[in-house]
């Protein structure tokens, strides 16, 4: 697809790109140079590495395997690929990465995925359907996510938007966003500020400053508010004027495809 081009509604020729590529580019743009970032595998890792390859060369990537300041030249398949240890500033044990580095609030951004997410940014990665002892779908479980969600200064969630993933109520709270609304994080003793953005394949949601309910504040080119509403399992709040997010630049796309080359 990399050779294709298309013409956007404004009549400007741009490279063709997929919805996932737009999502990853959008997530990468949310990271600033010099930040420290605790990275989950999959979409978050792709976005964080894209940011480092483009506008944020000084971004510090931290993986739960204990690799601090990893600089992979291609996307790792797992959080413990050899390239992460070989390129890291420091490699520490797993108890240390959680106790010394994550728990005290040293990390700026936690970058998470989700199987289900609700309007207060609570995340389920444990079970779907049935009950805990007899679930319809057994998901991988918590991993590092609950403490990333609790202790990073801020959290960004990257997830494809469908009525199956964007639900009124998550079947299991694996990682806490804003709980049931304002005041819950403080009451629970969660030291980080919580999720600041949900970045999807349709656009960006941010918490309402008063109610903390996630509100659609940005849309990708060609995506309508109606489409976003249709792919949300709750009555989606929409900003008065959702921003139209600029499409991936040729440089962003080239960098992303180069990173993904090996596992494409």
């Amino acid at each position, binding site marked *: 697809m990399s050779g294709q081009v298309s013409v956007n509604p404004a009549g400007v020729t741009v490279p063709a790109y997929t919805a996932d590529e737009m999502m990853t580019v959008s997530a990468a743009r949310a990271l600033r140079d010099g930040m420290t970032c605790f990275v989950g595998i*999959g979409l978050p890792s792709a976005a964080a590495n894209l940011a480092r390859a483009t506008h944020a060369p000084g971004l510090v990537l931290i993986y739960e395997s204990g690799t601090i300041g990893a600089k992979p030249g291609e996307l790792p398949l*797992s959080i*413990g690929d*050899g390239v992460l*240890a070989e390129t890291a500033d420091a490699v520490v044990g797993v108890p240390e990465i959680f*106790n010394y580095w994550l728990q005290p609030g040293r990390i700026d951004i936690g970058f998470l995925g989700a199987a289900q997410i609700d309007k207060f940014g609570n995340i389920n990665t*444990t079970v779907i359907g049935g009950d805990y002892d007899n679930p319809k779908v057994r998901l991988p479980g*918590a991993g590092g996510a609950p403490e990333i969600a609790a202790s990073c200064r801020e959290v960004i969630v990257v997830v494809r938007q469908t009525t199956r993933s964007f639900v009124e109520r998550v079947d*299991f709270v694996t990682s806490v966003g804003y709980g049931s609304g304002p005041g819950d994080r403080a009451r629970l003793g969660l030291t980080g500020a919580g999720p600041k953005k949900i970045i999807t394949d349709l656009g960006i949601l941010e918490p309402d400053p008063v109610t903390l309910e996630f509100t659609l504040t940005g849309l990708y080119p060609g995506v309508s508010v109606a489409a976003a509403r249709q792919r949300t399992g709750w009555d989606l709040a929409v900003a008065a004027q959702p921003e139209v997010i600029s499409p991936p630049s040729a440089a962003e796309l080239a960098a992303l495809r180069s990173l993904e080359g090996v596992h494409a």
Partner: protein
Amino acid sequence: MAQIVSLAEAVRLAIRDGDAVAMEGFTHLIPFAAGHEVIRQRRRGLTLIRMTPDLIYDQLIGAGCARKLVFSWGGNPGVGSLHRFRDAVERGWPAPLELEEHSHAGMANRYVAGASGLPFAVLRGYNGTDLYRLETLDGGRSCPTIRPITCPFTGERLTAVSAIRPDVAVIHAQRADRSGNVQFWGITGVQKEAVLASRRSVVTVEEIVDTLDPRPGAVVLPAWTVSYVAHVPGGAHPSYALGYSARDNDYYVAWDAIGRDRAAFTRWLEENVYR
């Protein structure tokens, strides 16, 4: 004091039916060859403990070795589900699997408590999650492993997690010397804690050398903390040993189709493990 024996001998001597066994290695240095030997020796009723069950426990669960799983993240990293694990939880095949589930931070701290000889560890975590609720509401579980605790100095509400004390720890390392001193480096995970928390241990190694040259950043387990050492080059495959091999990512991707299908998995066991 460590004895240097064959892998089959180490497993026969160290692991019994019904044991709680922790095979650790965080993506790196996963003791696959030892896991396959446990399958071959047809151990049953094991409580399998591991932060990331990974393919190694997918294989042990599918082979019918496990009664219970203690874990924090059960997926195929970067690929998707562990289908043998899911089949056991969702459909009870080949046998139902009891779960004891934590976060990574919780599991890591439980090993630290075990290694420290303490009954529990403290962390700031779990508050507001359903992992906590499972164990504390409605009477909770019969053997709870997560409990609220108040700091005696500040009054802060924190979480206590019970210690893990396995019967046996199984790890893979880069090197041992002829006395059984063990050395490993790179991503070192929770292996030191797992060995020190366990009554017995089995360590497979890439290489047995006359003397261990000091290596900055390496973990050393003195011979008197280890029960059995076995020379098993490549014993971490499809995981890897930094400096000796690379992670076989293609194998992890290919496992998805094998693990997904009971017949394909059974065939894989026959051809690759029982053979």
